[in-house]
């Protein structure tokens, strides 16, 4: 904003006095925003401390049993009281009185942690293993309405974490002893699944912040898995069980339906859908192939990563979005370092390895900084 004010001043759209007033206002707003952010951070840390405190209070079977004289009902009632009063208090402060909206939202977060603690407590009382997928999904379904109705980012992130844990627990419960499930199938399906959620028209249009969260978190396992495939490929990933095939086909169909239901079929959406579909078809093919050709998979993985990086730069520079450019720079750096270490370490003299690596990174940094400056200049 400051740059724009400077631009308006230089172009004679506003005078020096107006520019000063605007700059002063922006300074005040920034100060206010900084204070609010500090408040939110304090509240968030406070509720996380409270949530952890109550969860450990439950797990410390020894003294809690002595304290409450082994009456399970009292333990449950105490937790119900804490959960519901925190939810009701959150509503009163954030929406009815509107006196302390930040504290109110923090209490919503606390109630979303406590409801999970309550389910775990009931599970513990009845000797049900707390580390199971059903409990995680029950917790997830309970807090999802809170995230969406109150548009609460922290609760949404908690729900994504629960989804990931629940999904991993589900496959752990199946007890199928295949390392490939964890190295390729689970990260790719989790990543594409989360990314697909971010493309659902309703979420994209009305809850854009959530859509970005799903896409960012979903991209991480996808990128890491493809990066690993550029270096190391197993002889086989053969897994024909319905537990793997059905979710993959479901995601393919879901992506097609989402694409059809989007009114505006932007270039970005087309590219995202094509990439997700290619990735899912790749998963389906690799799961059904007895003997994988490692060279082919490595080539495909490299093409996939280069496509992501080129798309990132193309999109970032086209729309002059610094965040996308920055993220793509980071991805390119990881890709270069991984490949340089992989090939350079075994083929080069160690001194040459470091010297060339340093020079390569310096040149890359210089080129990217120059590009960034060009965008900034264009802004003026």
């Amino acid at each position, binding site marked *: 904003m400051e740059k724009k004010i400077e631009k308006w001043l230089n172009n004679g759209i506003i005078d020096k006095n107006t520019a000063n007033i605007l700059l002063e206002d922006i300074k005040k707003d920034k100060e206010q925003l900084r204070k609010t952010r500090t408040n939110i951070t304090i509240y968030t840390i406070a509720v996380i401390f409270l949530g952890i405190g109550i969860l450990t209070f439950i797990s410390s079977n020894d003294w809690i049993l002595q304290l409450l004289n082994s009456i399970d009902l009292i333990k449950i009632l105490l937790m119900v009281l804490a959960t519901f009063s925190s939810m009701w208090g959150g509503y009163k402060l954030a929406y009815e009185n509107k006196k302390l909206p930040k504290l109110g939202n923090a209490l919503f977060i606390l109630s979303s942690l406590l409801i999970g603690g309550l389910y775990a407590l*009931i599970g*513990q009382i009845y*000797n049900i293993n707390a580390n199971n997928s059903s409990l995680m999904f029950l917790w997830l379904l309970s807090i999802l309405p809170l995230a969406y109705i109150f548009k609460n980012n922290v609760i949404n992130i908690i729900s994504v974490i629960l989804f990931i844990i629940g999904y991993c627990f589900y496959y752990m419960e199946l007890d199928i002893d295949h390392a490939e499930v964890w190295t390729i199938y689970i990260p790719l399906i989790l990543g594409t699944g989360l990314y697909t959620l971010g493309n659902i028209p309703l979420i994209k249009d009305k809850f854009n912040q959530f859509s970005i969260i799903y896409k960012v978190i979903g991209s991480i396992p996808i990128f890491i898995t493809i990066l690993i495939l550029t270096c190391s490929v197993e002889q086989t990933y053969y897994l024909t069980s319905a537990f793997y095939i059905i979710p993959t086909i479901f995601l393919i169909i879901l992506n097609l339906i989402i694409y059809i239901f989007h009114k505006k079929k932007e270039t970005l959406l087309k590219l995202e859908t094509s990439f997700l579909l290619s990735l899912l078809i790749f998963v389906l093919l690799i799961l059904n192939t007895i003997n994988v050709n490692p060279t082919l998979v490595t080539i495909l993985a490299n093409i996939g990563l280069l496509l992501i990086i080129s798309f990132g730069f193309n999109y970032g520079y086209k729309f002059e979005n610094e965040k996308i450019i920055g993220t793509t720079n980071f991805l390119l750096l990881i890709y270069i370092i991984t490949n340089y270490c992989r090939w350079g370490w075994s083929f080069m003299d160690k001194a040459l390895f470091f010297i060339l690596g340093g020079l390569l990174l310096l040149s890359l940094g210089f080129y990217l900084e120059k590009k960034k400056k060009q965008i900034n200049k264009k802004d003026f």
Partner: protein
Amino acid sequence: MKKIVLIIMAIWALIIIGFIYSQEYTLHNGKEVLLKTIPVDPRDLFMGDYVNLSYDIARFDNNKYHFEKNKTVYVKLKLDKYNIASVDSILNTPPKKSLYLKGKIAGYNTNYIVFGIESYYVKESTGKDIESNLRYGTFVKVKIDKNGHSKVIGFIE
């Protein structure tokens, strides 16, 4: 907004009541039997100290029965005069008018059945003691309802 908050709270309350009811149903209507077990591998994960229970009736001979991984099975039980349960037969469908336990063939071992009663929560820091005291085996009191669902009530120490 107030209505929505109240609806969410009502749904949470229903889930809690339903969860407790489903567990209490087995405890109140189930038949009490004894199962021979060995406590193994006490671990301390999310929920404090607990012991893992490995039941004698969970293991079966692969030559006699053959089931696929993760398949649901029904273990028909026979009781002796002390109410100690042993396996009568392992079936694909629930037996009529007999006491049975519902279980699932383990994914890692096709001659082992998981019943969902393998965890038993104990006082903090006592899991390892229980394991070493009862390493030669003990009996666990279990309630089994007419649908084959089961709940652990306690140890016979």
